[in-house]
Structures are given as C-alpha cells and as structure tokens.
C-alpha cells in the first residue's frame, strides 16, 4: 500500500515513486534472456544488466545453434556443401546458394550463362522480398502486435514459397544454384506465376503499410530507439539494410555489381536517423526497389542454357588457391571464403555471416533504452540463428 504522506493537494504521488526508485537505484539486476525466449528469434541469448528497466550492459551469448557448418563443409565435397548453405539463413536459401556458387566460381574461374545470371537475380530479389516481409512481421510481433502483421507477412511468404517450391522442389531448402549455373530451367508457366506475384506485390506492400507504417504505437516504439551512428556502423562492419538506415550508401549491388545487377535500374534507399524505424522503413523501400528489379529481369530474361556446359557437377576439383566471394544478401553482406588445396573438398570453408557481424553493435544500440526496446532493437537487426551460429 502506498499512501501519500501528507495533504492530498500536494503533487506527492510522483515524489513518492521517485523515492521508491531512488531506494532501488544502483541495485543492478542481471537478466538472462534466452536461449528460450519468445522474442529472441530462435535460440539467441542476451545477458542483460538492468538498472530498473534500463539496460546498462548487454552481452550476447551465441552458439546455441552452432551446427559446425564450416567443419562439415571441409569434410564434404564442394557440391555437398550447397544444400547445407540452404540451412544457414533459412529464410534466404537462394541468396546463400548464390553467394556460395559465386565464391566457387571465383575460385575455379567458371563462367555462368546469361539466363542463369538473370534467374539468379530474379530468385535473389524474390528472396529479398520474402525476407523483408517476414522481418516486418516479426518486428511487429516483437513490438507487441501479436499475430496480425505476421499473418499478413506469412500469407505473402507462402506465395513466394510456392514459386520456389514449384521451381526447386522445396519450400525453404531450395538447393538450386550450381557452380556454373542453375539446376532447373523454369517453365513459361513459372514465369507467368512470378510475374503475377511481382505485379501483386506492390498492392500487398500498400496494404501492409496502411496496416502498420503509420501506426502511432509503432512510431512511438521505434522512432529514436536504437540509434546507430554511421561511423560506428562502418567500423563494426555492419552491412545490409542496417547500414543503409544509418545513411551509408553501400550496397554491393551498386558498389561491386556482381551478377547482372549493373543492368538493372534501381535505387538504394538510405535512412538518416539510423534508428529502428528507419531500419524498418528501409526494408519496406527496398522491397519496392526489388519489385522494380524483378519486373525488369522478368521482362528481359534471355533464352538459352542455364548451365555452363563446361561446368562439372561430380568430381569437381578446383585447382589450389583461395577466393572470397560476397553478395548483398537480404540481411547484409554474405560472403564465402574458400581455400582449395586441389582436392575434392575445400581446405577451408568459411562463411561470413551478415547477421552475426551485425550483432556486434547490439549492446551499443541498446544501452540506455528499456528492456522492451532491447527486444525490438534485436528484431530490427534481423538475425537468423542458423547463420549467426552456423
């Protein structure tokens, strides 16, 4: 029971709360969030030190999904690692495939036919749509909009997954790219379906934005929360939408155009506050740009082979050397570093995981905010544990 100590006219309730706060002030509370926590996007764990509700220290703990991907990659063939890359960032199997294929192609000096390059762009942009849509849903879930935005996001996700499934045979684990091309040539019906999805996507984005972007609660929860300065972001190797939300113009599709990205017209949206709202908006804007790329790619895709006739599937032994290939994945820069010793297995197989590196600044962004904000800041980083821990 809290009773006001003196006359009811004096504004004392606040003073009393203040006194209670002061009595507890300085007693830090250490909370372990995760690895089983509904809002940590899997098995991520944060050791949070709280002063009241304010985060004064935050140490991420990794490794709860450390599946030894790199060790397995060194023990299996080059081709054998391809299905494992699907399971890295399990939202974006197509871009993971592409990054790996790109690195191996660099290592072996392989060419890719034009049609395959176009297909890769199409599939990568579909993946970007898929990933950003899901992220928007999960972010809102973290903000407390339980269920509804995620339902909308997953409804759209199913449409893209249907495309992936009818092309590659699996909803999530596509295993579609090969060194020197792609695996299956899409049918005209598939292209029609892809065009339909692409055409309808802006409508969904409008609907989604009407649902949530202007929402005052979302703005209050995200604007000014988790600010990240451009200098820190560059130093900490932040990539992807998180970096661009800080206003740094660095998108590998423009900066180091791999594949055929130089052929497409699109813009790179940049934020100016570097806060959680910017990170959300960057993704929405990127989706609109992705739709533009998709429209161009689906319009221009040439006929031809999808697989380089000189490429090998079995007994693939690139000569000794090393290569680092990277692409702009939906979460940031995903790279593969391969060292070949001339045998059928890579000597060193390393994945540069974007969301793992992006977590470097989690503590910096959370300090001074409340624990509830830490949840939404984590959501805006867009982590997938399969990739963080590998």
């Amino acid at each position, binding site marked *: 029971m809290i009773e006001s100590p003196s006359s009811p006219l004096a504004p004392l309730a606040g003073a009393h709360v203040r006194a209670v706060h002061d009595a507890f002030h300085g007693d830090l509370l250490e909370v372990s969030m995760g690895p089983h926590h509904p809002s940590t996007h899997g098995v991520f764990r944060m050791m949070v030190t709280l002063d009241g509700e304010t985060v004064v220290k935050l140490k991420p703990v990794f490794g709860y*999904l450390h599946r030894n991907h790199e*060790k397995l990659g060194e023990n299996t063939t080059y081709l054998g690692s391809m299905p494992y890359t699907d399971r890295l960032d399990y939202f974006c199997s197509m871009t993971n495939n592409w990054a790996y294929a790109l690195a191996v192609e660099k290592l072996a000096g392989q060419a890719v036919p034009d049609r395959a390059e176009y297909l890769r762009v199409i599939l990568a942009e579909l993946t970007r749509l898929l990933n950003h849509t899901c992220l928007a849903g999960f972010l809102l879930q973290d903000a407390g909009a339980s269920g509804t935005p*995620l339902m909308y996001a997953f409804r759209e996700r199913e449409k893209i997954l249907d495309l992936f499934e009818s092309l590659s045979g699996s909803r999530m684990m596509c295993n579609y790219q090969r060194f020197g091309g792609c695996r299956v040539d899409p049918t005209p019906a598939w292209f029609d379906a892809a065009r339909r999805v692409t055409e309808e996507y802006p409508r969904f984005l409008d609907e989604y934005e009407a649902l949530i972007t202007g929402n005052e609660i979302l703005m209050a929860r995200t604007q000014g929360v988790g600010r990240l300065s451009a200098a820190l972001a560059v130093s900490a190797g932040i990539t992807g939408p998180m970096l661009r939300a800080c206003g740094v113009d660095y998108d590998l599709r423009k900066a180091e155009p791999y594949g055929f990205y130089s052929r497409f017209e699109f813009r790179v949206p940049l934020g100016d506050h570097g806060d959680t709202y910017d990170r959300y908006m960057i993704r929405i804007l990127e989706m609109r740009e992705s739709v533009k790329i998709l429209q161009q790619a689906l319009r221009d895709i040439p006929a031809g082979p999808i697989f380089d006739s000189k490429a090998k599937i079995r007994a693939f032994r690139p000569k000794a050397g090393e290569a680092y290939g990277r692409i702009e994945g939906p979460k940031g820069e995903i790279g593969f570093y391969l060292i070949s010793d001339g045998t059928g297995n890579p000597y060193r197989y390393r994945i540069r995981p974007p969301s793992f590196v992006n977590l470097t600044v989690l503590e910096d962004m959370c300090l001074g905010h409340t624990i509830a904000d830490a949840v939404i800041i984590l959501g805006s980083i867009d982590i997938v544990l399969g990739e963080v821990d590998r």
Partner: protein
Amino acid sequence: MSDTPVITRQDRDELRRQGILLTSIEEVYNWGRSRSVWPLQFGLACCAIEMIAASMARFDIARFGSEVFRPSPRQADLLIVSGTVTKKMAPQVVRLWNQMPEPKYCIAMGACAISGGPFKQGYNVLKGIDRFIPVDIYIPGCPPRPEALLHGLMELQKKMRGEKLTGPDVPRNKQPDNPCEYPVPEFGAHDLEPAKNPDIWQPPAPVRPDKP
C-alpha cells in the same frame, strides 16, 4: 477393473450409429485432451519457421486446437523440438521438458531433432533429442512441410485418444516409476556429461548381415 472392457469400441461405434451415444470417462478425457494440445512456443532452427508457417493462416493449426503456443513451459502440453539440438542447447531443452507438467508429449520435428540429421557429423550437434527426453512422434523431413507437422499432430492425437486411464498399459505419465524429471546434462571439457540418458536411449546395435 478388468483388462477386457465389456463394451468394446466396435460396440460403441455400432451403438453410435444407432443413435445411442455411449461414452466413457476415458474417452471424454482423451477427446478433450487431444483436441487442445498446447505446444510450447519453442523454435530451434529451420523447422521452427515451418512450425510458425503451420500456425499461420494457410495451414492454420488452430483447426486442431493447438494454436495456443505458450511461451512458458508451465502452460504447455507439447514440446515440438523443431530443429537441430546442439550440445550447448541440449541442457536447456531438457530443462524445459522437466518444467512442463504431466501429461506432456514431445514431437521430434525434422531430421535434426530425430537423429542430428544432416548435421549429425558435427562436433556440437546432439544426435537426436531422444537421447535425453522421450519422444512420442517422429516427423522425418528436412524440414517437414507444415502439412507434415499437422499430420504428426494428428498422429499424436490418435496416440492420445488410445491412452488408457487405468491398467498395465497406461501412458508414461501414469506409470509409477515415471521420472517426472530427467537428468539435465552438464557441459564437460569435450562433450556433454553424460552424453545420453541410458534409461530412455537404448539403441540396437548396428548390424550388417554379412559382416557382424
């Protein structure tokens, strides 16, 4: 109570067709339980995404009474181990399982949860969650489609409906020697200690006909 019921299931079905609804406490109890299985909101890896997809509009696990994903193990009936259990995560999974109230069930969803799956050669991957906790339904697939998860859930419901309230073949949770708590492994210098729970993990020896 005798082992052979006076009125068999066939009799009951026949009576139901004739318009006489005859039921037993057992049946009502199991019916109620099997149609409100509350899973733990617990995702591990790739399969968790398909589990979320199963709870979304397209597949709608709510039609099976299981849409209430509880964030707390104290309120959950079903542990869906959806994804790779690493050795670093295994103690936490066992702890969650221990915190769930009986009767509780476990579905191992996907190859990784069953046997370590494609990652089974990894040094940090637990080769199947059934080394530490008893699993009721195995859903192979990598990852299983959401429909496959729903099918697994229906299999679980079937299993629950067949459970007896009394007698010698009562389910695990009613057996007198049922350990409500399973030993939680600890982190060792090279591996989990112990690396398995021998009470529930009794694999057959690998055999090959010609080379014993």
